[in-house]
């Protein structure tokens, strides 16, 4: 390692980070080379964001060292990281919408004059200078709420630049950007590189990575599984390492479903894009597809492709713009979740903690939530039914009266599937069915879903993981920027074709899309 030392600006050596239930990073060594775009690739849950949070001082590693220019540093807070010249632009932007650009650039580190007064002129001047360095001059008194996502990202980059960042971490910066906005971000990255800034770039988007990256590191399940320079990297090289083509064919043989009746017919489903904050929704354009009884349909797509929006629309938690949903020959008018449940459509949400579990309640109460009937609860009947389902779904709990928070991620997920099954649905929707679930429990969830499908349940799931999509789905739809860009049956599916269909093209090669862009420049 010492022979390469002159080139390495930042090294994370043998970093280990554990969370209750899982090891997020397992002795990961990551090197960032000076004045290069260092790409970090991996699927959801591979540990990319955790590693970056450690570099940026947001979280502390359990074991391992950070070395800056070869000497060990301690980074215990974002402030300390900034002092070392390490800054991060988070995946979820942290711009404050009620403040203007220059206030945002100096939020938390305001310049003062006369000891107590904010020095607005100096702040504005330096903000303007930073934006100019990024070749993106904007009126610095514009409220952040009025900026497009792309411009907010630029404002954040300007903030890090003004802080004297030598190392800039960009976490999935393009996931919510339109093509033109992404293109102008790439311009900014090239400029920063020229200005002597080292970039650490995280993304799933293959085209973009091959276009920008100089050095590549691939993470899978908390381990580094590949490291190479641009010249040695090909699309295939990345995909193979990311998906780890191994040992997953044993989920269960598939039941032929070609002759089964069509259960769900979706025609022309559309949704308008809206919002720019955490409530932002990606647009959907004219989606049409069908789903048979007993079939498992996977919807693969990158972040921001509209996967979650599609499921929430079917589950009634998001009103649609246009389109028809026909279930079992009947056209549905779903205006809320209760309507969808009544029609037989249930959803296991992506974010268990935020949208699924009631932490104060027991496992039993969580499973039976929403399917209580009559005026009085029947504890005996409920316990019986919950116990039956818990057995069927292998929920490993000593006692169903324990708080649901006592379960591991995998078992919490199974409890939410059990909650859905309490309603005897005909269509089960799952958004990222194994997010935050360890590898063993993952396979178990797949087996359970296969078993449920074999009994005639139609399953629609979305995933941003290639391996999961390949393992679980009978048929795959690929979503790219709100459109179905490809459809594969399980036997014609290859990792590369899947990934290619999901990746939006880099550069403005799609003039047809420019009408819907809202870049400001």
């Amino acid at each position, binding site marked *: 390692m010492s022979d390469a030392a002159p080139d390495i600006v930042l090294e994370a050596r043998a970093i280990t980070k554990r969370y*209750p*239930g*899982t090891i997020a990073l397992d002795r990961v060594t990551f090197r960032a080379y000076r004045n290069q775009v260092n790409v970090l690739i991996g699927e959801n849950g591979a540990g990319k964001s955790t590693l970056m949070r450690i570099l940026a001082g947001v979280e502390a590693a359990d074991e391992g060292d950070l070395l800056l220019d070869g000497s060990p540093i301690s980074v215990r807070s974002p402030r300390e990281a900034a002092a070392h010249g390490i800054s991060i632009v988070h995946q979820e932007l942290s711009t404050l919408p009620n403040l203007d650009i220059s206030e945002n650039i100096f939020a938390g580190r305001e310049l003062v004059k006369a000891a107590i007064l904010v020095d607005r002129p100096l702040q504005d001047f330096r903000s303007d200078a930073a934006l100019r360095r990024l070749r993106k001059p904007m009126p610095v008194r514009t409220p952040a709420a009025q900026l497009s996502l792309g411009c907010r990202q630029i404002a954040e980059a300007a903030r890090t630049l003004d802080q004297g960042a030598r190392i800039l971490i960009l976490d999935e910066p393009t996931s919510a950007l339109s093509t033109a906005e992404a293109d102008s971000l790439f311009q900014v990255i090239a400029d920063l590189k020229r200005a002597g800034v080292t970039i650490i770039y995280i993304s799933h988007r293959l085209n973009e990575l091959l276009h920008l990256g100089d050095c590549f590191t691939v993470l899978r399940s908390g381990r580094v599984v590949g490291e190479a320079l641009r010249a040695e990297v090909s699309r295939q090289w990345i995909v193979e390492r990311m998906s780890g083509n191994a040992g997953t064919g044993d989920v269960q043989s598939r039941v032929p479903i070609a002759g089964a009746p069509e259960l769900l017919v979706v025609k022309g489903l559309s949704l308008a894009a809206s919002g720019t904050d955490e409530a932002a929704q990606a647009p959907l354009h004219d989606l049409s597809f069908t789903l048979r009884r007993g079939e498992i349909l996977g919807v693969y797509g990158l972040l921001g492709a509209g996967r979650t929006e599609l499921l929430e629309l079917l*589950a009634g*938690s998001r009103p649609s713009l246009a389109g028809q949903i026909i279930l079992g020959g009947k056209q549905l008018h779903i205006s*809320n*979740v*209760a309507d*969808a*449940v009544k029609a037989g459509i249930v*959803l296991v*949400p992506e974010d268990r903690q*935020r*949208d*699924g*579990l*009631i*932490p*104060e*309640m027991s496992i039993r*109460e969580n499973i039976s*939530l*929403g399917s*209580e*009937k*009559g*005026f*009085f*609860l029947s*504890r005996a009947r409920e316990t019986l039914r919950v116990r039956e389902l818990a057995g069927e779904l292998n929920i*490993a*709990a*000593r006692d169903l009266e*324990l*708080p649901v*928070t*006592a*379960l*591991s*991620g995998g*078992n919490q997920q199974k409890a939410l599937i059990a*909650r859905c099954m309490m*309603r005897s649905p005909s269509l089960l929707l799952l958004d990222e069915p194994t997010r935050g679930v*360890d590898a*063993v429990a993952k396979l178990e969830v797949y087996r359970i879903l296969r078993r449920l499908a074999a009994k005639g349940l139609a399953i629609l799931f979305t995933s941003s993981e290639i391996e999961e999509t390949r393992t679980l789905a009978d048929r795959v739809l690929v979503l790219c920027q709100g459109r179905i860009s490809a459809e594969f049956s399980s036997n014609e599916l290859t990792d590369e074709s899947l990934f290619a269909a999901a990746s939006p093209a880099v550069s403005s090669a799609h003039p047809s899309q420019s009408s819907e862009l809202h870049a400001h420049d």
Partner: protein
Amino acid sequence: MTEHLISPGRSDRLATSSVRALLFLLRARAVLVLLLLLILFSALAPSFLTANNLSILSKHVAISAILAIGMTFVVLTGGIDLSVGSVAGLGGMVAGYLLTQGLPFGGSVHYPGVLVAILIALAVCFAVGLLNGWLVAKAGVAPFIATLGTLYIARGAALLLSNGKTFPNLGGVAVRGNTGFTLLGQSFLLGIPLPVWIMLVLFGVVALVAAKTPLGRHVYAVGGNERAARLAGIRVPRVKLVTYLVSSLCAALVGLIIASQLEAAHPATGESFELNAIAAVVLGGTSLMGGRGSVTGSLIGAFVIGVLSDGLVMLGVSEFWQMVIKGTVIVLAVAIDQLQSRLQAKFLPYLLSASPEDAQ
């Protein structure tokens, strides 16, 4: 795999039982404090534990307990109802107006019977609850603001009814056929004041609903995680609406009971009662964030506050010191509540793994 458990060592296992004991004491703190106060006051004031005093005490407690019982559901959903004191005032004034002024009807004045007057008063307060529920559940107004608004509206309405004056002599006139209102607050059943019976019945009903009905479970679910509750198909607005209706109806009963006890309806009745009710709920261990707590806790909380203030009066503690002591008790209770939930979260893995076989 025992991945979700932090496996405790031998010494941790020994610590487990003391942690359990500590958590039990913390959880039962309201009862312990109540017992402590009862022992303390009966030792210091010989007349404290007499039948007569306990009867007066229970009547006082009934007032704040009924409000607290009604408030519990609202707080469990993560809301708050500041309007209960005013609603109590309005309820009493509506009944007072009907009993003393009557209703002008076709040129002459008609005096409705006591039962009708009570029902109309309840209906008016029900409407305030409906407004609260609509504002919070449908219009999306923050509960604090919505019920602060109705606090003023209801108080203003109560003052308008009499132009700020008191309606005296609610005993009724035999000729008008509207006697008997005083029974509500002053009569006894099996030697126990009627308001106490009302408190007990309400407690039974609300506790039953909380523990044994889908509605009760949905109240907890909405408070625990509103997004998850909505995504589970629970009609969240409906659940919230019901909680505000329950709260307003309980407040109306309190107003009627007070008017009946005093044989007069005063428009300022119930001022700052909402604070007592909230204090009782919080003392009883219900989290203002929602999702955690119980109706039984609120009842005990009301007893703690009632015993404390009556006991201090009997000991001759000055009114000003009483306020200081009451405030201290409330703040301590909430601080201990925080301590308890932190300890519970911290020791949960130990408590779970205390028994030998672990989940796979």
